[in-house]
């Protein structure tokens, strides 16, 4: 983020003469400098609301800070680092496996034989994953294997839905172009279906990662043997230690933002064309 006092006197050229006005215009032209101020403004507003919030159930920033200190100093499996590590590992492995699985199931939907299976997976997202606890329990050992299985399965239901909609929105024109160029089925599959949709697939993974965090905390509540943020939140809630709960929620938020940024970086580096906007 660029921050320099001189920039105030000479705003970047892509800022218009009235940055304040541009900030509230439809598609207003604000430069990176003004944009960073907008973000800072919102963070300040958030902190103010937090400092002066009248809701009793919400701990104040100072309490959360002290909770961080306590958790940091706590030994071993009740410590901050250990539990974040456990959950982060589950999160990363879960996102990776469910992404690969979902890509496979979604891309196969261009083949009529697999369409009903794809539809079924999409429909399953309405079913609460915890309802299958016993099924997972009989198939997988409690702890790590069961957690990974539940998370990847649950996330895949949503990922497949999003990814399939990406595939459904491929313009028919592209398919016809490929056919006219003499492409066979495999060429069409790769050049029209897979390759051009990859950047949108990354977006879908980023969107559904949020769903993953909701599931993780639930799943770790049922599989507490290894610990993890979910099990910690559960424990702290039952002992009414709300500051600790909020500290963990904050950590989840920060990790999510970092992961989001990483995914968009990957997209920009691997698929630079996806940044070029279509013109009328």
């Amino acid at each position: 983020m660029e921050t320099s006092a001189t920039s105030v006197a000479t705003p970047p050229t892509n800022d218009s003469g009235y940055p304040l006005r541009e900030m509230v215009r439809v598609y207003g032209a604000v430069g990176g400098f003004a944009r960073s101020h907008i973000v800072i403004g919102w963070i300040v507003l958030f902190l103010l609301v937090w400092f002066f919030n009248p809701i009793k159930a919400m701990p104040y920033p100072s309490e959360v800070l002290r909770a961080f200190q306590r958790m940091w100093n706590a030994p071993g499996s009740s410590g901050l680092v250990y539990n974040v590590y456990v959950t982060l590992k589950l999160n990363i492995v879960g996102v990776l496996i469910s992404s690969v699985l979902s890509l496979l199931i979604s891309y196969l939907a261009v083949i009529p034989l697999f369409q009903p299976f794809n539809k079924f997976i999409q429909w399953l997202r309405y079913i609460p994953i915890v309802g299958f606890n016993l099924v997972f329990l009989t198939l997988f050992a409690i702890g790590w294997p069961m957690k990974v299985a539940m998370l990847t399965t649950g996330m895949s239901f949503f990922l497949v839905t999003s990814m399939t909609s990406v595939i459904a929105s491929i313009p028919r024109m592209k398919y016809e172009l490929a056919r006219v160029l003499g492409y066979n089925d495999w060429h069409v599959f790769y050049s029209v279906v897979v390759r051009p949709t990859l950047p949108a697939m990354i977006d879908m993974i980023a969107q559904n990662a949020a769903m993953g965090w909701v599931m993780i905390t639930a799943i770790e509540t049922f599989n507490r043997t290894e610990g993890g943020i979910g099990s910690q939140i559960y424990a702290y809630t039952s002992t009414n230690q709300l500051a600790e709960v909020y500290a963990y929620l904050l950590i989840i938020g920060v990790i999510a933002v970092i992961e989001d940024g990483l995914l968009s970086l990957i997209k920009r580096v691997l698929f630079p064309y996806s940044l070029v906007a279509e013109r009328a």
Partner: protein
Amino acid sequence: MTDNHTDCIPGPLDQMPARLETLLHIEKVGKEFPMNDGSTFVALKDFSLEIQNIKDKPQIVSLLGPSGSGKTTALRIIAGLDKPTSGCVLITNGEGQHLRPVRVGDVGVVFQRYPLFEDLNVLHNLIDPAVRSGMNKDEAKEKALRLLDEFDLVKQGLAWPLQLSGGQRQRVAILQQLMLDRHFIILDEPFSGLDPVNILNVIKLISNIAHQHTLNTFLIITHDVTSALIISDHLYLLGRERDKQGEPIQGSKVMKVYDLIAEGLAYRSDVEDLPRFVEIRKEIRLVEFPKL
């Protein structure tokens, strides 16, 4: 291979070129669409057209018709992208081959909206299809670079399609089809949206490519009368018949054919100055076109 400069001689031909075998045979093609109100719309009815191989010349045929007359509908059927409701399209695939029903991929198509692979840069939009059709990688790259150079697109080689101007995009779309050594290419509205200079450039471009091989056949779909007259050896008018009250009857067909070879207007670079050219253009513009 024949030299394209000797083909476009300013002056009448010494003798009429001979017509050889049929390259494209369209017989009584009909196409109906279900409409949103539940009725059926007849876009084409008894649409017939035939392109013959002309000795020592390429074939450039124009299909001329007003907006909505079914030109794109016809193109899609000729390219094998849509099945006709009735009738058939037969094509030869190469020298001395028999006529057989058209299949997708037999005919190169430059679509009205110039689709490209948006995730590939211009160079790879040319190389990829060629390599997939079996061309050697180095050979494809060499040919692509040569074509880009020829058509003033060298600077755009590494650009993404979304970064091209309308005219650049059109040229890339045409070159993409040219990479595949096709003998049959259809172009949908290649003159639309271009300035007069670029229209002439496209005419030159098509005519040059056509003359690189006498087996080359171009079917140009357009509503630009002048350009069609300049470039073609045959001109087909597509439109609807009218009933006694003068109301158009559904279903477009070929209403009139101009044999520009017989008229002495084909293969000449000075064609625009000829009285017969001016006469026919006037006839199409003022008499024929309004009837379609």
